[in-house]
């Protein structure tokens, strides 16, 4: 037995060595692209973040000064604050709407209506976010559709240029995010709810439970994984929003809708403070990770 397996094991080991070599050769292009255009720039960003540099002249080492500025500068802090406020509109409203819709509809019989609704719900996913920004700046304009509808229902007194008003600009921009993400959340949650055992629902209904109890005891736990996924995606979208804001408000009025993405762009390319912009970039990356990782942990440990 041992005699006959020994050479074969040797051959297997040689084959596996050759396999490893082939494997690494297959991995090489992917690693090269990823390292070359993500990891290396990341390293460059860290390096820049310790310097005072205008992009052309001589760079001077400033240690952690740029990071200190990120956490003390009122404008930069305001932009981080705005990004967290956007979570209400990018995450809570779309996921909440999706949950309510999915739990009410629960199953959609395949048919023309469901096909059309799916297509419509997905439209905002297809068009560029920048175009959504343009479409909505027009919706929100003084003579735009929102004010017109308010006039129709007798609330014309509320009419205003929504994106130019300090008080309403951030919620208005946030609602563009809700518009983009609600469809995705609804369809994904509907798909998820379709996978929950219908017998569970029948049992609890026979038990005399109403919509609320059913929602909290069956629907919500059953959709935990889908919810975790959607919360992750939408929170990242909120914290790193750029396109919508760039084409609708550019961060204004004042700094009412300023977000980290716009700040980095302005500091780096308009004010040419490459060090500060890079430091803010690193901070943004850390914030996203710090918010997203616990969500992953939660969804996993509670399963």
């Amino acid at each position, binding site marked *: 037995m041992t005699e006959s397996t020994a050479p074969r094991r040797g051959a297997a080991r040689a084959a596996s060595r050759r396999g490893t070599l082939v494997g690494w050769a297959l991995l090489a292009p992917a690693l090269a692209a*990823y390292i070359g255009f993500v990891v290396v720039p990341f390293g460059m*960003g860290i390096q820049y973040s310790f310097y005072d540099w205008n992009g052309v002249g001589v760079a001077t080492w400033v240690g952690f000064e740029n990071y200190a500025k990120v956490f003390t500068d009122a404008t930069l802090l305001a932009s981080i604050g705005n990004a967290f406020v956007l979570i209400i509109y990018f995450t809570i409203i779309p996921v909440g709407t999706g949950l309510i819709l999915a739990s009410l509809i629960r199953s959609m019989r395949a048919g023309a209506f469901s096909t059309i*609704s799916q297509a419509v719900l997905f439209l905002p996913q297809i*068009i560029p976010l920048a175009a959504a920004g343009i479409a909505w700046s*027009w919706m929100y304009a003084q003579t735009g559709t929102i004010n*017109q509808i308010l006039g129709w229902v007798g609330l014309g007194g509320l009419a205003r240029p929504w994106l130019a008003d300090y008080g309403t600009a951030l919620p208005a921009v946030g609602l563009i995010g809700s518009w983009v993400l609600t469809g995705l959340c609804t369809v994904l949650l509907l798909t998820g709810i379709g996978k929950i055992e219908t017998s569970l629902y029948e049992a609890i209904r026979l038990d005399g439970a109403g919509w609320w109890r059913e929602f909290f005891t069956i629907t919500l736990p059953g959709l935990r994984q889908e919810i975790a996924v959607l919360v992750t995606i939408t929170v990242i979208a909120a914290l790193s929003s750029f396109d919508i804001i760039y084409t609708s408000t550019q961060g204004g009025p004042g700094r009412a809708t300023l977000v980290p993405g716009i700040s980095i762009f302005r500091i780096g390319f308009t004010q040419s403070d*490459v060090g500060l912009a890079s430091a803010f970039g690193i901070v943004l990356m850390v914030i996203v990770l710090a918010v997203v990782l616990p969500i992953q942990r939660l969804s996993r440990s509670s399963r």
Partner: protein
Amino acid sequence: MIVSRTEVVIGRILLIVVLIATVLPLISMISAALQPADVNPTGLVWPSDPQWGNFVTAFETGHVWTLMVSSSLIVLGVVPASLIIATLAGYALGAMKVKGSRWILIFFVLGLTIPFEALIIPLYYQAQGLGTLNTQLAVVFPLLGLYMPFSVFWMRAHFVNVPTELSEAARVDGASVWQEFRSIQLPLAMPALSALAILLFLWTWNQFLLPVVLIADPLQRTVAGALTFFQGQYSLSIPLLNAGALIIITPAIIVFLIFQRQFIRALLQGAVKG
């Protein structure tokens, strides 16, 4: 299934409200685009004299044709290469389970949550160093890297689920790694590959930040990136701006309507796996 009547009705009404809210901005764009180009439009109206000519004007003054070509070049630079590279890597990680796969996978997964804004400053100076700044390559190269974590993750997820018996049987029959890959793995991977192709196409076509920062000439950007140019060009004419934006979003919507089922499946899977 027991669902009470009122719930069904409320659900339907709510759904219809959401559907209307979803199409409203698009209809409002059409309404604006059809109003006379030189006056400030008013909300939702079917204009008595629809100005279809606005679309022609926007198409010409917006150089839409040039933009479409430029966008297509960027897509052609990003999508096929990404698919090939990610398939090779996904195969090595998922099917061959190369030594150290776990760590390499984690290395890639770490890149999944990186906001593009966080890297945009160094990417600008890197492109300047490489001499690609202000050319389409300035966008193509970084996108290859930035989409790689997702693409590799996606293809690995496919290959890891292919039963190992298949490749073992092929190896017993004396197939080389390449033959096995060609005639067994690749055909099985087609659904995963086409879904990934759809996602990469959409993300590249709609990419905004990179073209805006890395290509100064709007006519060499993606169509999405050129929207800022439209905003500058038509700052005085909301009808023309809306007409231009509508022209820009139409190709993607047409492709979406044709491949609707595949798109929705890809986006749903993309969400879950991402």
